[in-house]
């Protein structure tokens, strides 16, 4: 049994949720939610939290960095591993918006794609 305090992001209320977790990391009870979305959010956030990752990569021969994103959210605890892997990539120009920069980043099954093209702002 353990307790976690998190803030619901379902709406501007920002309810402070007290989440009780079982030994198996299952949500046992959620206190403090103003509506049904709180419990759903607590379940997602405590059992399998995920985040989109957006960052920059260096393109060979280009001064300005290139912005990239994961195509889907990755597990939260893998965010910094993913950042490290993305930062090690150095694609060659030209890059088009949507081009895959890192395939299956850190074995998450999620690709990293360019969110801009190299001919812009370069």
């Amino acid at each position, binding site marked *: 049994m353990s307790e976690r305090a998190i803030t619901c*992001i379902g709406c*501007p209320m920002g309810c402070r949720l007290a989440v009780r977790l079982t030994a198996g990391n299952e949500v046992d009870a959620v206190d403090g939610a103003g509506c049904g979305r709180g419990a759903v959010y607590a379940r997602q956030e405590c059992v399998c939290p995920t985040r989109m990752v*957006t960052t*920059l990569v260096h393109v060979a021969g280009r001064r300005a960095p290139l*912005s990239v994103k994961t195509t889907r959210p990755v597990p939260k605890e893998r965010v910094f591993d993913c950042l490290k892997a993305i930062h090690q990539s150095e694609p060659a120009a030209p890059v088009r*918006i949507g081009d895959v920069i890192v395939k299956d980043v850190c074995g998450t099954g999620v690709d990293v794609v360019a*969110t801009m093209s190299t001919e812009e702002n370069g």
Partner: protein
Amino acid sequence: MTDLDVLIIGGGPAGLAAAVAARKAGCENLLLLERDEALGGILQQCIHTGFGLHVFKEELTGPEYARRFIDQVHALRIPVQCGTMVLEVTREREVTAVSPAHGLQQFRARAIVLAMGCRERTRGALMIPGGRPAGVYTAGTAQRFVNMEGWMPGRRVVILGSGDIGLIMARRMTFEGAKVLACVELMPFSSGLTRNVVQCLDDYGIPLMLSHTVTEIHGRERVEGVTVAEVDAKRQPLPGTEQRFDCDTLLLSVGLIPENELSKSAGVELSPVTSGPVVDDALQTSVPGIFACGNVLHVHDLVDNVSEEAALAGRDAAEFARAVNAQRPDSGAEAMRVRDGAGVRGVVPQAVHAAKPACDLALTFRPAAVYRDASVVVRIDGAEVSRRKHRILTPGEMVKVSVPKAELLRHVRGKELTVEVAP
């Protein structure tokens, strides 16, 4: 002097959406002027996701959101001139601009859309004691340095103000290897969106210090630290609560101000509450034929709302230009005044022509404080025309109210429309 039907000043999200809407409304002779070397405005440096949920039903990054509109501008063959700075706009709608490519240019436009966006408040507006060391930046400047130029402004960071750009930069700096020590907010609540507080601060264990401020900046050549103190209800620092943070960078996220130098040169009346032009429901300013939209009109939270508002301004500007071309006189009907009621700040638009509404009337404002379980009530000359209950209202989130077209038609001779927060 070049004659135009519609001239759009600014190629950020507002200018792009206005140009697209003006073209779609049938305007053939239009031009968009942009000061930077590329279109997209501030979106180009906002590489995080969260844009477009309303307009495109997808979560896009800033550059991707901009690209959608830039592609439309090109597909519609809308003439664009980048690297062009507008120097003056007159009441007669004559515009002077300069650029390396074309030198000095003059335009006469039947309608103008102001879409110049806003600027960040700087250290000078806060009067924080201390020297003038390097390492104090506005959050948006740091965002441009990191995301577009590829430079890190520092390694150990304190953020003053909890505006959305500051929160986003807390995460960006963390992702790029810096240590963010704290986000310090003068008010007892964050001025940013809840999801940004959670996903940019809480996720990385960055403390949000509410009712605190920076009372001194240390360092001669470079920032060496800042002193942070708690403040009382009157926002005055409390003696004995000071603590020092050793840092090399202070980022400021302490508010945005619509950039209206050009509007002033044209004699456009500005609102002391929004710092933007006073407009009617067609987003027309006090100068006939000059329209305003986006952050130059009032500071928005979401770009989706900017795009929607700007489309209205673009369409109305095209309509105005067509009316001028056809020598059609203005209806001249008296407009209804819009007033901020209790708990409400900066309703836009400030005037409404109820006689022939094209659609339901959209009003936006910011609550003056945090209200729980309160209603937003709209009245015309005392008669209630709209009431909606909200579980929470905060100054950090702009509120949109809609008044049905039918209600406006019922109050054609109305004199005053009020928006208020009622318990």
